[in-house]
């Protein structure tokens, strides 16, 4: 193999020896320039875009979180209101029950009083009528007795039959008088 091209080498490195120094320099310089281009232009542009993208996504997520929080708050409020309304309804029902019981009791009370009053007044009227009757009767009985006595005295007292007729007549008169009244 023709490797004598490497003149003046103590050890023949073969293809491991660069042919020209320019290879080393060109490789290093080109890589360096590429590095600078990547660092100044390419990487910042890409990273900036990635940042924008992630911030946009994060912004969207934040907005979604805010919306969710709002919805949850609305739901909680709604449920609060609902439970409040339920409580109120229960209270109203309770009140109504109580009130109705009270009203019933009052009505019963009033009815009892009224009936008492009616009974009382009936009783009083009866009593008054009775006393009036008694007074009337007393007067009448006195009169009747007086007239009976007069009549008995007016007729002959020895005639028993006549006396008996007189008494019967009187009683019939009395009966008639009672019927006509």
């Amino acid at each position, binding site marked *: 193999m023709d490797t004598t091209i490497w003149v003046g080498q103590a050890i023949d490195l073969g293809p491991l020896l*660069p042919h020209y120094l320019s290879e080393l*320099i060109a490789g290093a310089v080109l890589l360096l320039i590429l590095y600078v281009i990547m660092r100044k232009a390419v990487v910042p*542009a890409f990273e900036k875009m990635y940042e924008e993208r992630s911030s946009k996504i994060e912004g969207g997520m934040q907005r979604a979180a805010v919306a969710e929080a709002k919805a949850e708050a609305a739901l909680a409020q709604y449920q609060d209101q609902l439970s409040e309304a339920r409580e109120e309804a229960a209270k109203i029902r309770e009140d109504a029950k109580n009130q109705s019981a009270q009203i019933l009791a009052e009505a019963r009370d009033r009815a009892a009083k009224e009936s008492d009053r009616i009974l009382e007044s009936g009783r009083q009227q009866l009593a008054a009528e009775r006393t009036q009757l008694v007074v009337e009767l007393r007067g009448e009985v006195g009169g009747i007795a007086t007239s009976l006595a007069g009549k008995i005295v007016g007729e002959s007292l020895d005639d028993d039959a006549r006396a008996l007729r007189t008494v019967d007549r009187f009683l019939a008169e009395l009966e008639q008088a009672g019927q006509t009244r």
Partner: protein
Amino acid sequence: MTIGLVPLESGGYSPPGTHDFEFGSIWPGVFPDWVNKPLVQALIAFALVALVWYLASRKLKVQPTKRQFAFEYLYEFVRNGIARDILQSEYRRFLPYLLALFFFLLINNWFGQFFLFMFPTFSNIGYAYAFAIMSWFVYVGAGVAKFGFGRFMKQSLIPEGVPGYLLPIVIPLEFLATFITRPVTLALRLFANLFAGHLVVLVFIVGGGFLVTYQDNLFYNFAGGASFIFGLIVMLLELFLGALQAYIFTVLTAQYVSTSIAEAH
């Protein structure tokens, strides 16, 4: 610029060898000898990578177009797949170097299978040396910048928990491993893969060409055709190997940087 087919002109057959990796001036008499095919390839690859990435990095949108999506994929391959994976939180500072390294290597390696070029630039070992030296400066520089020279040397040369009487042996070994072996293996691995790969392709193509044109021997002609086909298959393999070597070089550089800047355990 012509490779391999020269032996046919003289009638005999001389197998491809290291002389196929040596190039003179692309324009003898006008340019000096060192302005050769590999240099031109390196320049073209450089221009290609720089231009394409510069264009790709302009007008990036939050909602990517198809073209931008493809470049984002390539960018993230190095950014997430290599840099962030290995260097974690400190990847951002080394990302530009790793990007430049990977894509410059990739394009140059693939030149071995592309029309017009048909030669992998890094099978000229000077370029591999240059890249290894650059990576050496990057990972040593990263360590020195972070810890200062003294502490960095102490961290790289004295592993934790080594008993004192072993230090005379360990320190030279660690020095060799960290500061000598690493760049040498980086350069040789890259160079040898591409050199050998290209040589294999040359053997199949040049040998095949010789056999196909051999007169009055049908068996040789058929064998030459088979050799051509096999050469094409090897070239496909080389396409894969070129990408793989670019990836390995980049990953190892990142790995070395990561060991340099790692806090003591």
